[in-house]
């Protein structure tokens, strides 16, 4: 559905997108995962034909984003990173505007947005500028869907959104996937990655790894432990001095310690008991995608 081949984009000395190749298959929910400045938005702008690549190409459903840009624009539903609806138009006026631009009507494609729009409908006369963050995201998604696109490109739809609205947003994406939409979505939240079929982890314009989130976690090269105590900051400092650690990172209420595979639990327990005088709990755990991402970043 989406074929990105060796695409590059630089701004002066800065290479924003550095030789990226991605294939998104029909019906996939594909995640571009990386922090701000990784190149996600530049990539989206090339896919939407708003920016011309320096090298390489992007082809969506057989249409080249440079040569066939008019076609491409019609088959895409795009939700840019910044909220870009008209703040002084009402909810309904915004939706109507986007429908009209694409030569359709709200009624014609209402079934596509019904699930999402029904929570907005009570506020359809409210100005878009007066909506809460979660509501704005829902409206932006409706506007991206109203012309019945084939492919959805969503640039950081959940940034600045609270955990509940974020969860709801992903539930909506899953429902759209069930309806047959192909979606490319970017996010800086690593836990969002676990909801995608396939992800590309990107940093500084390059792909660190690309696979299913399960496989990426499986490739993690070390043994991983979760350790918790009443004061995690002190605990982390103690663990940081452990000479057999590969890495140690705080994870909310616990610390994840990576070691060589031959290290046994007793060895770590003995080390910790020798330097701290409070109780702690330790257990082996499976790595998650955030562990994997940080490991890949370290290797770079």
């Amino acid at each position, binding site marked *: 559905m989406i074929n990105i081949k060796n695409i590059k984009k630089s701004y002066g000395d800065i290479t924003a997108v550095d030789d990226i190749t991605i294939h998104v298959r029909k019906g996939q929910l594909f995640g571009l995962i*990386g922090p701000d*400045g990784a190149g996600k938005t530049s990539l989206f702008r090339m896919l939407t034909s708003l920016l011309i690549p320096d090298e390489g190409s992007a082809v969506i459903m057989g249409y080249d984003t440079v040569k066939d840009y008019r076609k491409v624009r019609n088959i895409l539903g795009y939700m840019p990173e910044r909220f870009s609806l008209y703040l002084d138009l009402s909810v309904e006026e915004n939706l109507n505007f986007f429908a009209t631009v694409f030569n359709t009507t709200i009624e014609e494609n209402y079934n596509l947005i019904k699930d999402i729009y029904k929570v907005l409908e009570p506020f359809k006369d409210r100005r878009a500028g007066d909506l809460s963050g979660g509501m704005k995201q829902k409206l932006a998604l409706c506007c991206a869907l109203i012309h019945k696109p084939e492919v959805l490109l969503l640039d950081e739809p959940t940034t600045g959104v609270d955990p509940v609205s974020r969860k709801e947003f992903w539930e909506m994406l899953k429902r759209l996937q069930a309806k047959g939409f192909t979606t490319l979505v970017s996010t800086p939240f690593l836990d969002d990655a676990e909801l995608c079929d396939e992800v590309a982890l990107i*940093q500084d314009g390059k792909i660190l790894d690309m696979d299913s989130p399960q496989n990426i976690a499986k490739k993690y090269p070390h043994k991983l432990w979760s350790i918790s105590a009443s004061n995690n900051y002190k605990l982390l400092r103690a663990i940081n001095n452990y000479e057999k650690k590969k890495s140690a990172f*705080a994870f*909310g*209420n616990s610390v994840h310690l990576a070691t060589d595979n031959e290290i046994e639990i007793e060895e770590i327990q003995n080390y910790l008991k020798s330097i701290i005088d409070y109780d702690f709990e330790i257990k082996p755990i499976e790595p998650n995608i955030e562990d994997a991402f940080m490991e890949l*970043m370290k290797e770079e």
Partner: protein
Amino acid sequence: MEKETVIEVKNLTKAYGAFKAVNDISFEVYKGEIFGFLGANGAGKTTAIKMLTGIITSTSGDGSVAGYNINKQRDKLKENIGYMSQKFSLYEDLTLMENVEFYGGIYGLSKKQIIDKATLMLDRLHMNHIKETLISDIPLGWKQKIAFSVAIIHDPKIVFLDEPTSGVDPITRRQFWDLIYQAVEDGITVFVTTHYMDEAEYCDRISMMVDGEIHAIGSLQYLLNKYDSKTMDEVFIKIARG
């Protein structure tokens, strides 16, 4: 022993017409705490922070921050707190050092104080080599660390951090929290909002706002027990979904 309070708020309310953005909230923040201020979008967090930082006055209720009344001593209050968000931070077209000088000046530090502070800060951040670099040429994660250090350049009693790590990579995000812990060791109280629930778990106490009111407040352990949850993410979803 009575704990020293840095924020004390009683029955604080902000109404816009009939709509109460903040509805009768009361709480305290103690010296040396990391206080997590959570809530759904539109719950009233931003309005509450604006009252606590002296940007707007309350409709009713009252309080003090860093020893100053939030309605009557707003100028004094602003001089004695630090504030940082992702949106409001550094001047992109000034260098790192120029930003430090500018903010140091705003907060009334002398030339010598600014130089002493800058030296300490650049050492701690390992950023001596980029002090003449334009902020626009510095990566986001680094900028956020600089912005935080600048926000506490005048040794405020308390610093307000509004989603300070939004969009930052996972390693830099953790380094940012190291800076927060260092500031706490230097005696600064931290008031922080975040959408990362692992970060909420780093806080000493957490409050949860829903529809303008504080629905829950307490330590992580207290909230996990009370809402029969394993993670703060679960607590958040249970409270926000009612």
